């Protein structure tokens, strides 16, 4: 049953990903990404990591997609986004996709999966790691968020000056 659901979520994730790339309507693109994020959350759930799964839902599905919807409205995107005549962009995109595919497939060979069984990870396990071995990364993530705030404000300032 777990395996069937795993394939189901994988299929949904791929459908979502293709919607993002192929659907000319930006709202549908955002919804495709939402489908992709939610199916990945479902896969985390099946991989015995429910905390990660729900944080994925709260941050990615509940936060980032909402942000994308704002950007779509802000940029007034009603017509198809892509100007498909630019061949250089296409070549770079295909090259990157190939690189990602190679990395992904080789990861499968380096870390072979023996079924879907993994240890159940609780919030306390993650907290334990975060406050001991992963402490530096934990504090650094806070700093990263600070950088994010500064950048966001700087970008908006540029945009506002441009409008004037």
């Amino acid at each position, binding site marked *: 049953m777990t395996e069937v659901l795993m394939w189901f979520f994988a299929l949904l994730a791929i459908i979502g990903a293709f919607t993002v790339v192929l659907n000319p309507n930006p709202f549908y693109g955002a919804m495709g990404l939402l489908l992709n994020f939610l199916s990945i959350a479902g896969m985390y759930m099946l991989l015995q990591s429910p905390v990660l799964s729900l944080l994925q839902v709260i941050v990615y599905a509940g936060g980032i997609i909402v942000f994308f919807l704002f950007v779509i409205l802000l940029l007034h995107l009603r017509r198809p986004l892509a100007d498909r005549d630019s061949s250089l962009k296409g070549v770079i995109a295909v090259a990157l996709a190939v690189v990602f595919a190679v990395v992904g497939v080789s990861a499968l060979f380096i870390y072979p999966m023996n079924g879907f069984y993994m240890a159940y990870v609780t919030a306390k396990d993650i907290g334990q790691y975060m406050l001991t071995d992963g402490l530096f990364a934990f504090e650094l993530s806070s700093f990263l968020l600070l950088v994010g705030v500064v950048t966001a404000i700087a970008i*908006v300032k540029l945009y506002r000056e441009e409008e004037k």
Partner: protein
Amino acid sequence: MSELWKLGIMLVVGLLVAYGGILVSLVLGPRRPSKTKNYPYESGIQIKGNAHGKVAIKYFLVALIFLIFDVEAAVLFPWAVKVGDLKLIAAVEGGIFLLILIVAYLYALGKGAIKWLD
């Protein structure tokens, strides 16, 4: 039956009830569309332009700051459950994390990111 399966069942039940209801009502209700009935409701005056007008950039900024604090809150949950075990160590480590974020918050506040009226 593990807790995850129970949650999964409720997820499916919720979606079935919600969308099943809508589909049933599609069958139950009459269907008599007409040209004027299918106009979007805009107080009866002639519709002009597209519904999706331009949006002020302050909405965008709010969404960005929301995103940053959302990530922050999400990261704090695994920390929160360990406060009782690690006591002072966890409090100090979480305090440093929060302090950096409070700096970010004050910076955003000082730069007028949350200023709504000009």
